[in-house]
């Protein structure tokens, strides 16, 4: 009897742990994205991004990947004439975008007005490696109101 109870207790524990695991996974999903699909990185490049007011903000210039986890960390958005500042490039966490389906193509929307983009953390040149460090990356997540999730590969001791 004792053994059976123990077994039940252990399996309950396993279920709880299992549920916890999938919950954490679900948190990584972007609820605003209603277009679950596989998208080619080279197709993303050049995609135009609009804001909630349907203004064209510019286009996606690059996708930055954490090679250890395969997770897209940032999207580099090339802001066109929208700011009246000439070409400016900002790094935005991928989960700040809402990706929906429009016909057969994904539509990318970012909640950003001129002021938000003007003050956004900018990137210069192609030296993206510094964006790997938490000290550089976390403030960008905070700015775009995206919860910083420590990459799995560096959170383990």
């Amino acid at each position, binding site marked *: 009897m004792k053994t059976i109870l123990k077994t039940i207790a252990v399996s309950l524990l396993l279920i709880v742990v299992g549920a916890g695991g*999938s919950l954490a*996974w679900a948190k*990584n*999903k*972007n609820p605003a*994205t209603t*277009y*679950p*699909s*596989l*998208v*080619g*990185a*080279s197709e*993303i*490049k050049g995609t135009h991004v609009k804001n909630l007011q349907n203004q064209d903000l510019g286009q996606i210039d*690059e*996708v*930055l*990947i*954490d*090679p*250890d986890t*395969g*997770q*897209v*960390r*940032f999207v580099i958005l090339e802001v066109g004439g929208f700011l009246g500042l000439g070409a400016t490039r900002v790094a935005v966490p*991928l*989960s700040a975008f809402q*990706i929906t389906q429009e016909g057969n193509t*994904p539509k990318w929307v970012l909640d950003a007005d001129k002021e938000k983009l003007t003050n956004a953390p900018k990137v210069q040149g*192609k*030296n*993206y*490696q*510094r*964006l*790997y*460090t*938490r000290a550089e990356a976390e403030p960008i997540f905070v700015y775009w109101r995206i919860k910083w999730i420590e990459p*799995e*590969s*560096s959170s*383990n001791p």
Partner: protein
Amino acid sequence: MISKPAETKSMNATAQRTEAAILLAASEVKGARVINFQNENIGDIDELLIESDTGQVRFAVLSVGGFLGLGSTKVAVPWLAFQIVSDRGKIKYTMLDATRERLEKAPRVEGKNYERLYLANAAEPIFVYWDMEWTAER
């Protein structure tokens, strides 16, 4: 200061795929050379396929050149099956445990219709083939 996270990462067994703590630009990965463990040039990376909802790179499409003697062939390989060799933040080349025989039998992709690889029934067998754990929940 900057080298500290790199040191921490190299201690970590799960971080052995790369030599440095970097972010890779997708457009630099495209065209990266792929060699196998026998040091043979097997092709290059043609595309990275990203899950739009999670931001996870699921597959790299590997363009196999003349290696198989079959002309140009494309195979989808789970991204985490590759080892990335980088130098000063730039990708140098990638390594894949793929003999000629393994590549010949590998699941191929035709055209650019990558969307179907989102579905578990299309994607999971590819993970199984490359001995990778299928983790996506559908």
